[in-house]
């Protein structure tokens, strides 16, 4: 067994040193009736690297990889080109096989990276402080809601109808176990988000308003008026972003008055990976809210010789110190995904991020114009970044399956996201990134035309 260095001779010597006759003498505390007498039945025995690789490759081939088809899916997970050096760097054993940096003298690599990452995220979001990452965007969204309740000491939460439905579900699930009352809604099919309707739902019981930007239908709108309305009632504005590349082209949530900005960072460095691991981003605009934040924070300090160094800090918020009084039960974060984000963002820099965003938007506009020419198809959005909603005049779920049968991964149907909501059933979300070619757009347009006719 290639991962086990002990030889039988070693085992014999070690048992002798311990003073045990057999290995089972070390399991004496396990009640005899519960001890298994041999390998568990119903599972295969050990296998060679070659055999395991072959088995796993066979399974992987049963999936259609995004690179092998014209691909237009988004809805909270975006496919971007990740530079080769990102994956090389995150596979360095010193990063890959390190633990949480609890011994900072020998973890400065991870800690300095986290400090850089926190700064990048804060700047991208237009905020003062970001944490060292959470599990993913949806859990970060819930943590923002919980934090807003701690700060405002209120528990009425207003969710925008255009918040990703899975995020809304996570918030509603968690809120079942707290005093928070969640007011959700489904999106209205209209070309711009209904800010006035959202504002009318805010009252002096509201702890926070949660808005997605760009929203689940790909629409973008100035959130300043929502921020003002929330603040006038003493509520906080939580903005959720699932496509960080967008913030290379459009105003940051912080600029528009968001108090807490959370999001999914998967688009940079991490890849699709069928949904996980992803990267929860979490930032606050006002530094005075830092002590109410969940998750790990990395801070700058000095060592005994006065040299700059970094440590995990403000851990009195966290479960390993505060136990049942902690701000969150979170322990693990997404350290390696944060590194991937950090490296990808470093390779881009501000110049590259703006170029990348512009290229995404250019291709998205081109795709929208082309697809709008398909008979029976219209584009819902007035404004968008790299994702928009097509109205296809029939059940889009069926359309997606028919497109797949033609080898085109054509988008995410609103029916998949909102099963049972009839008025949304004809909507198809289409995302376009720098990985989308003009041939891909043409292939989708042609396939769509055939499927709809």
């Amino acid at each position, binding site marked *: 067994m290639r991962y086990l260095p002990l030889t039988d001779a070693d085992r014999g010597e070690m048992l002798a040193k311990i003073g045990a006759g057999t290995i089972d003498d070390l399991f004496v505390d396990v009640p005899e009736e519960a001890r298994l007498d041999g390998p568990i039945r119903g599972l295969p025995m050990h296998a060679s690297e070659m055999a*395991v690789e072959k088995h796993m490759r066979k399974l992987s081939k049963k999936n259609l990889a995004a690179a092998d088809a014209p691909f237009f899916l988004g809805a909270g997970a975006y496919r971007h080109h990740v530079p080769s050096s990102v994956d090389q760097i995150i596979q360095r054993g010193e*990063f890959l096989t390190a633990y949480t940096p609890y*011994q900072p003298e020998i973890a400065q690599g991870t800690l300095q*990276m986290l400090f850089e990452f926190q700064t990048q995220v804060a700047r991208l979001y237009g905020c003062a402080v970001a944490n060292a990452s959470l599990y993913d965007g949806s859990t970060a969204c819930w943590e923002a809601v919980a934090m807003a309740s701690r700060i405002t000491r209120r528990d009425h939460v207003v969710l925008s109808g255009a918040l990703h439905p899975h995020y809304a579900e996570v918030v509603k699930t968690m809120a079942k*176990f707290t005093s928070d009352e969640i007011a959700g809604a489904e999106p209205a099919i209209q070309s711009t988000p209904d800010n006035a309707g959202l504002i009318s739902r805010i009252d002096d019981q509201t702890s926070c308003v949660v808005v997605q930007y760009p929203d689940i239908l790909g629409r973008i709108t100035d959130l300043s008026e929502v921020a003002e309305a929330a603040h006038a009632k003493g509520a906080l504005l939580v903005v959720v972003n699932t496509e960080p590349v967008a913030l290379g082209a459009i105003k940051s949530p912080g600029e528009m008055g968001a108090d807490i900005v959370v999001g999914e960072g998967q688009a940079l460095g991490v890849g699709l990976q069928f949904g996980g691991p992803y990267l929860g981003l979490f930032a606050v605009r006002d530094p005075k809210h830092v002590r109410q934040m969940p998750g790990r924070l990395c801070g700058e*300090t000095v060592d005994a010789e006065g040299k700059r160094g970094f440590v995990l800090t403000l851990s009195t918020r966290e479960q390993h110190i505060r136990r049942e009084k902690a701000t969150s039960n979170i322990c693990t974060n997404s350290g390696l995904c944060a590194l991937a984000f950090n490296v990808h963002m470093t390779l881009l*820099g501000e110049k590259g991020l703006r170029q990348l965003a512009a290229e995404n938007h250019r291709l998205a506009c081109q795709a929208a114009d082309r697809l709008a020419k398909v008979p029976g198809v219209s584009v819902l959005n007035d404004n968008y970044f790299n994702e928009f909603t097509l109205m296809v005049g029939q059940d889009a779920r069926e359309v997606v399956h028919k497109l797949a049968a033609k080898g085109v991964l054509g988008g995410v149907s609103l029916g998949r996201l909102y099963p049972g909501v009839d008025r949304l059933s004809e909507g198809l979300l289409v995302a376009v990134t720098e990985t989308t070619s003009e041939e891909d757009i043409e292939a989708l347009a042609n396939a769509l035309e055939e499927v709809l006719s």
Partner: protein
Amino acid sequence: MNATTKTPNASGWKPEMTPASEDGLHAKGYWGPATATGNRALMLEEPLLFEIGRTNVTGVDLPEVNTDAPNRLGGLERAEPIGLPGLTEPETVRHYTRLSRQNYGIDLGFFPLGSCTMKHNPRLNEKVARMPGFADVHPLQPRETVQGAFEVINELAHWLITLTGMHGVAMSPKAGAHGELCGILCIRAALEARGDAREVVLVPESAHGTNPATAAFAGYRVENIPATDEGRVDLEALKARLGPDVAAVMITNPNTCGLFERDMKKISDAVHEAGGFVYCDGANFNAIVGKVRPGDLGVDAMHINLHKTFSTPHGGGGPGSGPVVLSEALSPFGPLPYTARTADGVVHLVEEESADAFSKEHFGGVMQSFGRMTAFHGQMGMFTRALTYMLSHGADGLRQVAEDAVLNANYILRSMEDILHAPYAASGPCMHEALFGDRDFGGDLSTLDLAKSMIDEGYHPMTVYFPLVLHGAMLVEPTETESKATLDQFIAAFRSLVERANAGDEAMKQAPYYAPRRRLDETQAARKPKLAWAEPEDD
């Protein structure tokens, strides 16, 4: 040669014997003169990205922005500078390579961090996770295009259910603490379904901090369970506390003192009799995988840290993955998406849409999922790695994993107990980790000083000051992927450090001397938090 007398210095190189405290240069952390760069040969200083990068530099080739092009951004163009510096590819690779060298990882050396199971991370896992069919698929692709992904989830679910002897498994939790939350929420949902409003969760003092934090989040009042002098749950005291107000008992088994809870089955029976549920923290499953099935001990819910027992990398603090195996009583309440084995032996993946139909067909309509915990299906990238690891070891190999992990820990325990306080050593063998305390240290030396001195010896320190039940706790978990030679060298180094600590060697208070940084000022970091880089202010 006896292991404990073997030299820790295997290369034959003889260190200079000047005591650290008498050598001025040594006390400053180096042997030679100061360098102009602050570098010391292979130990290289590295500035922050913000000090070397420029916002007009990029390491990717993309078309120039055409600012005159019409756009559909609704007048929301980002006009202000963002402040994100970039580096070209060679600069980027060097920046992170230099940073990486300031980190300690399993690949570099022995990492006996108790409770964290820092075992070797097989590289086949990494290769498999990067196969395009796994790495480059979208979570919302039409189901007919991702059958292989569902098969991976089902196959992994089958392994987890079989290894634990449980009924179902919730695959979506993102890490151990998320899994704990999942388990406790299942318990709460099951209690609510029968109209039973219980208020208390019992947790041993030795538990991970996540246990009480999780129970408190789920709305429960947390009460401590007393321990016996042998470091185990006090069964009689627990029985006396059980009653109609106790929703659940959270137990770590093997526990955080490295001991198997002998009375686990009796504890479970007593809790069940009182109408409560048993949550088992599965962080230490590595000690018993293939040897004992938690389902046979009456456990109702247990999370499994794939990043511990099943070798997925810790990545400097994540991502983890924490599937939760569930008993028959709790299975109907698990979060969606959900995986369950039906009477015919088939494992099914159940999502929102199919939940009702599945529930009617297989659970008599009682399936009452408590909801959704995360946007998509869970940590697929960790599932592929964990399954690859399980297939590599097989049922026979996993059993050997537990045996070797326990053997290695006992070898360390018995090689140290004559000079280091080992409170539970007399009561019998430990499981996968050995627990020591700092009772016999001289002067005012503490566990922290020994841990920092261990860094100078080239090791990652053990877990310190946890569990809280033992003064100056040192929790040593070697794992099964270490050779006897590695253990012998570590034991010799550990013994020499303990001897110095017992003798009150004051030089240890300044350790580490040879790490990229000396002890860091954590008080200053917390008092004046500096959590993001800012341009230095002009003088």
